């Protein structure tokens, strides 16, 4: 009886040995061209010839016969990345989507970290809008070293900066007497350097953002400083702005007891008229974090979603969500679409609430959605049956 069992166990061990050796690189390379797996930097399992660490040789529910979903598979060895992602507030889009291979090659690459391209060439693949030429350029930007300031996976800053506030800058720019004097002796540790300086480049040596508040440009600091700094200070010169807040929904009051204007507007310099930064969404995110968090998790998002003022009125509007032109806001860009879509307006009342239908009845342009064209439900059925229940 014992002998019979021992024979069975030996047979089983033989079968296991046979199948486990089937995944060894030498076997895989019988079909998969080996040259595709070589480079200056080779992923450790590939170098060890151990394809089966990542791939199942027979079947898998994941693309490429991966043993697990992509990110989960990577995190099983790269625990330090998993821990970082777990702890931080903001994730790089590919990280959020679990697509490590958006940036990394899984087998071999010419650069460290198995990155698909070197330096900024990799980043510009998605962030082409940052590929600008400046008269004066910040050295890391010039050298294509995005990773000097940005972290690739996750951060507590929405721009994926490595450190918060001025501490990132002060790593390289040592606090000297001259630097302190330039900033009127203020504690540099609490300043937000990036609110005034463009970290990529600029038209002058200090890399100041290009649009200046007139008193700042004229070096007339006392125009604003040395007076009560509340909202009234700004309205003293920009009195006409007050009327733009006399609407049903307004942004007045977001500053609490402090100056409401400087919550959004930089009183010294900005990237565009109105002394606003180019990365407008960053300002909006500081109060509307929930909207951005929802949007981050959606599969389909409206183009240019970070340019909030394309659709929303910054100071305020009579319309809910401070939309420009009410529900006609979409026609600003999608004029043609309005003519051949589902009936809208007074001719088509939403049976759920009796209100005239508009683009936003079916499309969730604000946060995006899990459906194509950021529809509020599946365009095949789920969306339509909300109103057309007899279907």
């Amino acid at each position, binding site marked *: 009886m014992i002998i019979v069992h021992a024979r069975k166990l030996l047979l089983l061990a033989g079968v296991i040995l046979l199948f486990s050796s089937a995944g060894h690189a030498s076997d895989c390379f019988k079909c998969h061209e080996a040259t595709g797996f070589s480079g200056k930097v080779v992923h450790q399992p590939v170098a060890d010839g151990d394809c089966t660490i990542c791939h199942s040789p027979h079947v898998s529910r994941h693309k490429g016969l991966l043993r697990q979903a992509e990110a989960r598979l990577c995190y099983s060895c790269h625990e330090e990345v998993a821990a970082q992602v777990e702890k931080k507030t903001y994730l790089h889009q590919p990280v959020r989507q679990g697509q490590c291979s958006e940036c990394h090659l899984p087998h071999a690459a010419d650069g460290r970290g198995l990155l698909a391209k070197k330096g900024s060439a990799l980043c510009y693949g998605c962030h082409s809008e940052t590929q600008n030429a400046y008269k004066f350029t910040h050295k890391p930007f010039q050298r294509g070293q995005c990773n000097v300031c940005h972290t690739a996976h996750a951060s507590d800053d929405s721009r994926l900066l490595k450190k918060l506030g001025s501490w990132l800058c002060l790593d390289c720019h040592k606090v000297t007497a001259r630097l302190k004097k330039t900033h009127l002796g203020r504690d540099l540790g609490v300043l937000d350097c990036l609110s005034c300086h463009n970290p990529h480049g600029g038209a002058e040596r200090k890399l100041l953002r290009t649009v200046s508040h007139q008193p700042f440009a004229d070096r007339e600091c006392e125009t604003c400083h040395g007076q009560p700094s509340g909202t009234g200070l700004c309205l003293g010169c920009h009195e006409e702005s007050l009327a733009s807040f*006399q609407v*049903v929904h307004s942004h007045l009051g977001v500053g*609490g*007891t*402090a100056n409401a204007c400087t919550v959004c507007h930089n009183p010294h310099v900005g990237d565009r008229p109105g002394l606003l930064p180019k990365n407008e969404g960053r300002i909006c995110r500081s109060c509307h974090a*929930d909207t951005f968090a929802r949007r981050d998790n959606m599969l389909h998002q409206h183009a240019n979603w970070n340019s909030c003022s394309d659709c929303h009125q910054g100071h305020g509007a009579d319309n809910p969500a401070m939309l420009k032109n009410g529900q006609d806001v979409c026609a600003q860009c999608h004029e043609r679409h309005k003519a051949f879509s589902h009936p809208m307006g007074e001719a088509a009342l939403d049976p759920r*609430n*009796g*209100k005239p239908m508009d683009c936003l009845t079916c499309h969730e342009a604000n946060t995006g959605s899990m459906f194509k064209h950021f529809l509020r439900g599946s365009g095949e059925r789920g969306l339509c049956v909300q109103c057309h229940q007899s279907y």
Partner: protein
Amino acid sequence: MSVKQITLGFGVLLAILSHSGLVLGAAGSWSTKYQLPQEDSGVRLEQPVSVAVDHQNQRYYVVDAAKGQLVSFDKAGGFLAAFNAGGELQRPVAVAKTSGGSLWVIERSINKLLYINPKQQKVRKFAPKYPDGTEVFLSRLALDRQDRLFVLDRMKGAVLLLDDSLEISQVYAGGSTTHGFVDFKLQQGELWALDALDHTLYRFDLSGTVTKKLKLSGLEFPTAFEVDNAGSFYLLDRHAGTVVVYGMNGMRSYDFLGKGKWSGQLWNATDLLFDWEGRLCVVDEGNGRVEVLTR
């Protein structure tokens, strides 16, 4: 263990859970009593943004900002009248009724307080100011039992008590750390105010001293709140389309309603108020109606 013992044990557990707010279904069984306007009334609200209640005469006054109207409803939700103060209302955003039957209205288009005497058909306009001449940016208002007028200044994010000459007699502000208040309620001789960005409720005594702060968890974008007689807080989460209930200690109990356009759902809701029978009025700007909920 007998069936009786099990039943008793379950009952005790249920009592403990419901006291701690962990039994969601039981505590959260709010349902729509009726809507303002009622579906078959032929009346349509374009942009309801706030509601006031006349406890004495059991009436609702809904502010329709887009139409520039106050719309009144009786105690059963029946439409009574729409009123625009002889065209003086362009963008009204809040209303309160005095015990004498007059109305205080915030008219946003001119940033003024309107005092409307419907019997005399007279409208008087006021622009309250700080002692230094700074304008008050009027946002919400309420009257206490002595008809004293409290207004919310959105510019400074503070609640102001105005005296009979509409001078500021008391300021209720959260200090330098607050983001400013977006709503306030008067409750049993105290004033509660909501710092929406910080998800914090402040309690003031009427002398303007902060006596309590409650940090609330689990909210996305609160825009209004209400307090019931038992001291529970009802927070309107505009983006989530829910009303979230917290115990008097700030512990989250349960939530109800949800985002959508059907009856019982919310789409950009703006205001909460209890009526004379403890029914909760939820002003739903996006759906153009007020849900009157009971349980």
